[in-house]
């Protein structure tokens, strides 16, 4: 039986001329693992919001079409009612955890169902057992890893025994072991009859288990096929950065780095291998336990504000890095920079009103507007569609041509082809 059917679903955000979703048709049956993929901006989050009931209740706009669960329309159901039948795992798992302790968290969900107090301990034990968290029963939430937190939330949500589980980019922050565990979990549950909808970017991990793949197309693709020639720097270019024997915390010693003007470096590795830590060491946010860093031929200055005169760092979450009241002000009135980032139309808008992809581009512009010698970028592919990524890479290319150097990190193996940089695997 078709558990969930989406018919001709379209959604247009208030004030936008183009619909974010148009004419989506999808049906999901018991045991399916449906993969919904597509570039950021192609409507993946919009689709999730429509399914969950977040749109149009929390995000203004017009919805047309039909969503039916077991042949019943659910468009009038609120989020709470839908959650009884469709389990939702949101992107930021922190927003679905409300207590201090693992066992209390599972109990919290069961209490919401108003079950009798006698049933709750057994159900808690069963849930912990099924999701591999029995050892963590009395742990505090802070002690859990990202993968364990996610499993906890899945356990809590599925305690309501929904036949359909919908997950928003669950593999985004998982390391290899947790990702493998999650895949196994999904496969097991699907053979038991659970229907799963995965909204996911990391195709390499998920394609093997998906029974259906649904690709959303971006409505307004600017196909700029940029080719990246070999970097225009020679051996005689000055060495801007030299790191030797660096280590910090529990990570193994990082490989030695030498970076010349005009060079682009890609740090590749799984989540949790220390890529961000290395960038933090270079930018001065962390002080190395061992080793030395030489910036522009001199030892790294002690004060971060001095280091950052030559080093710019674009953080993974742009929401921590926006400070101005207008987009133009954020890049210090450098309108040409805005044009290169395709943000000139938003010049007078408040930076916080932009989409995630636009915010990421804006923070890159803000960092480059300060004219650093080195630009560090954490997880360049996260929150980016193909167009946005192309614009950023083009800007970085121009930056390196005028003598800057770039270090980029990514856990996505696909980015190597786009970037044409020297790769260092961590």
């Amino acid at each position: 039986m078709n558990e969930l059917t989406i018919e001709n679903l379209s959604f247009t955000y208030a004030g936008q001329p183009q619909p974010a979703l148009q004419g989506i048709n999808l049906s999901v049956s018991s045991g399916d693992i449906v993969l919904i993929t597509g570039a950021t901006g192609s409507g993946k989050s919009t689709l999730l919001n429509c399914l969950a009931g977040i749109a149009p209740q929390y995000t203004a706009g017009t919805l047309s079409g039909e969503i039916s669960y077991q042949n019943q329309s659910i468009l009038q159901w609120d989020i709470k009612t839908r959650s009884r039948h469709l389990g939702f795992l949101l992107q930021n798992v922190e927003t679905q955890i409300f207590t201090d302790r693992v066992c209390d968290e599972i109990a919290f969900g069961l209490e919401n169902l108003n079950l009798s107090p006698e049933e709750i301990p057994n159900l808690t034990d069963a849930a912990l057992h099924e999701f591999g968290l029995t050892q963590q029963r009395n742990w505090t939430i802070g002690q859990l890893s990202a993968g364990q937190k996610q499993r906890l939330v899945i356990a809590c949500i599925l305690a309501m025994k929904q036949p359909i589980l919908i997950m928003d980019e669950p593999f985004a922050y998982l390391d290899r072991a947790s990702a493998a565990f999650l895949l196994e979990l999904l496969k097991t549950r699907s053979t038991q009859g659970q229907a799963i909808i995965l909204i996911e970017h990391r195709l390499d991990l998920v394609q093997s288990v998906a029974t259906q793949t649904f690709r959303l197309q971006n409505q307004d693709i600017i196909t700029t096929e940029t080719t990246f020639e070999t970097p225009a720097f020679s051996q005689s270019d000055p060495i801007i950065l030299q790191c030797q024997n660096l280590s910090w915390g529990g990570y193994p010693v990082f490989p030695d780095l030498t970076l010349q003007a005009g060079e682009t470096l890609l740090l590749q590795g799984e989540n949790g291998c220390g890529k961000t830590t290395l960038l933090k060491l270079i930018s001065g946010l962390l002080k190395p336990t061992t080793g030395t860093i030489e910036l522009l031929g001199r030892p790294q200055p002690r004060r971060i504000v001095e280091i950052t005169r030559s080093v710019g760092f674009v953080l993974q979450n742009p929401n921590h890095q926006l400070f101005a009241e207008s987009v133009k002000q954020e890049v210090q009135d450098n309108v040409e920079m805005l044009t290169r980032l395709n943000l000139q139309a938003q010049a007078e808008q408040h930076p916080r009103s932009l989409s995630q992809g636009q915010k990421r581009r804006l923070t890159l512009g803000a960092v480059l507007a300060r004219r650093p010698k080195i630009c560090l970028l954490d997880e360049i592919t996260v929150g980016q569609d193909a167009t946005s990524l192309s614009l950023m890479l083009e800007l970085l290319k121009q930056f390196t041509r005028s003598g800057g150097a770039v270090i980029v990190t990514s856990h996505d193996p696909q980015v190597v082809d786009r970037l044409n940089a020297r790769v260092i695997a961590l």
Partner: protein
Amino acid sequence: MSRWQLRDYVFAAFMTIGIAIASVITVPLTLSIPLPGIRTIVWAPFAGIFLTLGMARLQRRGSVALMIGTLALLLSRISWIITAFLVAALLVTEAVMWFRGGYRSRMDRLIGNAVFFASATVTGAVIGAYTAGQAFGAWVAQAWILVPMTLLSGVAGAIGWWMGEKIVTQLQRAGKLNV
């Protein structure tokens, strides 16, 4: 806009978090100065930002009670004197604002902030004096200290209100404050 919904309670709780963070930052700076109201004066501009935001989003009578009441409960883990004077101050504020019908307009929010922080100084002084005994009671009740400190607390609250309103404007421009 009539009934309290889940999103209102959650928003109020997060405003309480903001006010709590403001306390954690500012109170240790003035902890040892025995001047009544000095802690309120330093705390008010920052706490007032969140109080104003909460007022702007929730708008109803009882908004301050919800935000400060939770704070008072939270801080009871440190000292019951704090809980006592915060509750007294919120009761005074809600009583005064009851007649204005809530916090819908900017003027309402200004009055609410000024009244709350001014009463916090007074209630803090009174309750502190009562528990610390005669010596401090006499010291604190001297009008020439208490009155100016109360007025300054109101002014500090107004500063917090002013900064809060600036942020309200930014939130609205960014489309993030859907009332």
